[in-house]
């Protein structure tokens, strides 16, 4: 990566990367947990079993805290398009502004109108409308993800655009832009990964209660729903969505695929490195242990397929942090594989009725919840580092996108401000969520 002095966009990249990574810790749980709330409220309505209502009520408290931090950390994201990325706004605002506006108008209005009703309105609304509020919030949060992913997909693989007379980008076809094939694949992959986070958190709290021998009836619900949803979602993350995503990168960003795998020379029978350290200066992967032909097969369908190497492309189109990109991608894959194994085992034990007595597995489930957050973050690092050096792939370079009038001093100042504020916010969030989990689910209707 170019040093700060050489690259006018350096500090704005740092700030956007930090604030978006932090922000996205919260929406991924919101989007995963939302469907657990819908599910438990629905089961409660159908069966009249109080346990389901109680589960929904307990998780709604954690959902509310998580949602609030997601909202307050989300608003700076939209504003940074103007404050830090004025060059991008001028060039592509007519395109990406459409989906950012749609997100606000269609998704946020929906979510925010019903979030109050979901968290505090159980008594006021009655069971049916309250269930409706849960569905509205879940739909709103997923809709919001779709609009953001269309925006990102345009930056990864621009379609449906044209150059307007004033030199800026405009939309040639709204349909093509909104139905970008990259967006569909990215949406499926990302949303499955959000479900993984939600399911791991639910399962972890269930395991925690069972291990302590408290709230056992509730914990059983969390464990069962959490482990099964986590298994299904982890499988979906890998196949078909992750597989399709990698093929998409291979087709439209072959230089990125080469960098993700640390492949400097092209050729057929390309392998996937299980272990290896990229040495960019020497242009080789060191100490590699490879599965031969695997990359050719995964990316292009046959073992003989030719996979391009970095050497085939001009160096100024290489991603500018190949090392970090390589490790992000490989660690993500490793974690995803471990998730499938862990949750497969947990589901088998759950079917046999032995999960609650397998204490070592409960320990692993309890301690595993941070890893989906890490895997989600690594996935986004792969996508965004892989997109470099472009802001809009093939059209517009990152270094041209930042605001010319904003000095590095200003950006460093606000980055320090965000770091401090978000550190305190993180402590506060962990403290309050820890407190709610310590209290545990309580019987009876909470005051509404």
């Amino acid at each position, binding site marked *: 990566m170019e040093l700060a002095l050489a690259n006018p966009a350096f500090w704005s990249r740092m700030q956007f990367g930090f604030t978006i990574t932090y922000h996205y810790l919260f929406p991924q749980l919101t989007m995963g947990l939302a469907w657990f709330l819908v599910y438990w409220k629905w089961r409660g309505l159908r069966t009249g079993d109080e346990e389901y209502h109680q589960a929904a009520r307990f998780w709604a408290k954690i959902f*509310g805290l998580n949602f609030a931090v997601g909202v307050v950390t989300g*608003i700076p994201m939209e504003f940074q398009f*103007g404050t830090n990325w004025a060059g991008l*706004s001028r060039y592509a605002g007519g395109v990406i502004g459409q989906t950012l506006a749609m997100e606000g108008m269609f998704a*946020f209005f929906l979510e925010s109108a019903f979030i109050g*009703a979901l968290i505090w309105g159980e008594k006021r609304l009655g069971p049916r409308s309250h269930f409706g509020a849960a569905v509205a919030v879940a739909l709103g949060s997923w809709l919001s993800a779709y609009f953001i992913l269309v925006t990102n997909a345009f930056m990864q693989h621009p379609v449906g655009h044209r150059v307007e007379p004033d030199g800026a980008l*405009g939309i040639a076809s709204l349909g093509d832009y909104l139905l970008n094939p990259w967006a569909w694949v990215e949406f499926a992959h990302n949303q499955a990964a959000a479900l993984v986070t939600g399911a791991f958190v639910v399962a972890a709290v269930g395991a925690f209660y069972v291990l302590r021998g408290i709230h056992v009836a509730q914990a059983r619900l969390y464990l069962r729903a959490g482990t099964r949803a986590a298994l299904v979602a982890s499988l979906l993350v890998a196949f078909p969505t992750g597989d399709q995503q990698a093929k998409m990168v291979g087709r439209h960003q072959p230089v990125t695929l080469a960098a993700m795998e640390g492949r400097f020379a092209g050729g057929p029978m390309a392998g996937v490195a299980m272990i290896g350290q990229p040495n960019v200066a020497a242009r080789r992967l060191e100490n590699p242990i490879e599965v031969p032909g695997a990359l050719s097969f995964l990316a292009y369908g046959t073992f003989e397929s030719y996979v391009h190497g970095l050497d085939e492309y001009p160096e100024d189109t290489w991603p500018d942090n190949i090392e970090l990109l390589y490790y992000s991608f490989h660690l993500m894959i490793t974690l995803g594989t471990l998730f499938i194994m862990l949750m497969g085992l947990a589901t088998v034990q759950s079917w046999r009725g032995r999960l609650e007595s397998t204490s070592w597995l409960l320990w692993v489930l309890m301690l595993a919840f941070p890893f989906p957050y890490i895997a989600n973050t690594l996935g986004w690092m792969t996508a965004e580092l892989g997109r470099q050096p472009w802001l809009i792939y093939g059209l517009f370079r990152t270094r041209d996108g930042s605001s010319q009038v*904003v000095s590095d001093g200003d950006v460093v100042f606000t980055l320090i401000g965000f770091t401090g504020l978000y550190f305190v916010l993180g402590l506060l969030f962990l403290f309050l969520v820890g407190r709610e989990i310590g209290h545990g689910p309580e019987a009876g209707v909470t005051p509404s």
Partner: protein
Amino acid sequence: MIAIWYGIVSFLLIGYVTLDGRNFGAGMLHWFVARTSSERRQVVAAIGPLWVWHEVWLVGFGGTLLAVFPRLLGSAFAGYYLALFLILWCLILRGVSLEVGGHIDDRLWQGFWDFVFVFASFLLAILFGAAAGNVARGVPLHADGRFSMAFFTDFRSTGNVGLLDWYTVSIAVFASVMLAAHGATYLTLRTEGPVHDRSAVCARGLWTAAAPLFVAISIASWEVRPDVPGQAIGNPLCWLGVLGIGVSIYLLISGLASRREARAFAGSNLLLGTLLATGGAAIFPVMLHSTLEPDHSLTADAVAASPNALRLAASWWPVAAALAAAYFAFISRRWAGKVSAARDTQGY
């Protein structure tokens, strides 16, 4: 088409100011109208379930601005860099204080978050007021449509101006009084008991104080932008705005006098809305005035996206607006009625 989008973007911003402005107002008055811990929970509960709904209007505004006036967003947001981040940080603090304050029933905990709520609300009212002042006065725009502005320079309102000068600070003070009065009017509508009675006193006092300030601000604005009134006189929308201001003042005064709180609050919303709308209509088609050279000013035409982009946005925006109106109806019905100190604080 461009004029319609100017109206829509203004509408979203005015919607945000009237909706979230009541929360800033309630925040500024929090310590004055609510003395005991349960009264303070009552104030928070009166705005609690709705603040997110109010805040997303700002996001709706920002997104729509990017879609239809991308060059304005690129110029203004970068130019106001530090001020905007102060606003964003205060919004974070305000939201957090509302959400977590009620989580722990403890004097120190709640006292701390009450302080954060009051502090952030004050700063937000002042910053948004100063921002409005900056739009009215103009900014040091160069010929390339860019500017970068210090917090303050020589406190004069011409030439190489800063964010704060005598005029924008006056507007900030005026805006704070207006928003506090707006918040007090809202609290009289949504609370009962001692909080209601103190809010009613505050509302009457603050609206009375706002009247001479308004006259002073009008004269000051004339002084700073002598070109605008001449332009506004020929604009029928401005006359409509003046009529709207008259109607809202009537609603406000008659509502306050006869204790018809819904009427007073309607007047309060309408007054904020028509004042901003009249100002917006008066400066159109200039969206950002240059204090260096009038020719450098950014007009709506110059900063708008392509006609095609505006047409596309026009194809989906009314649908979104209709849906938002439906949610609004739902919310207004669900969260109507008064919040008492003793019960029904929705967990806040």
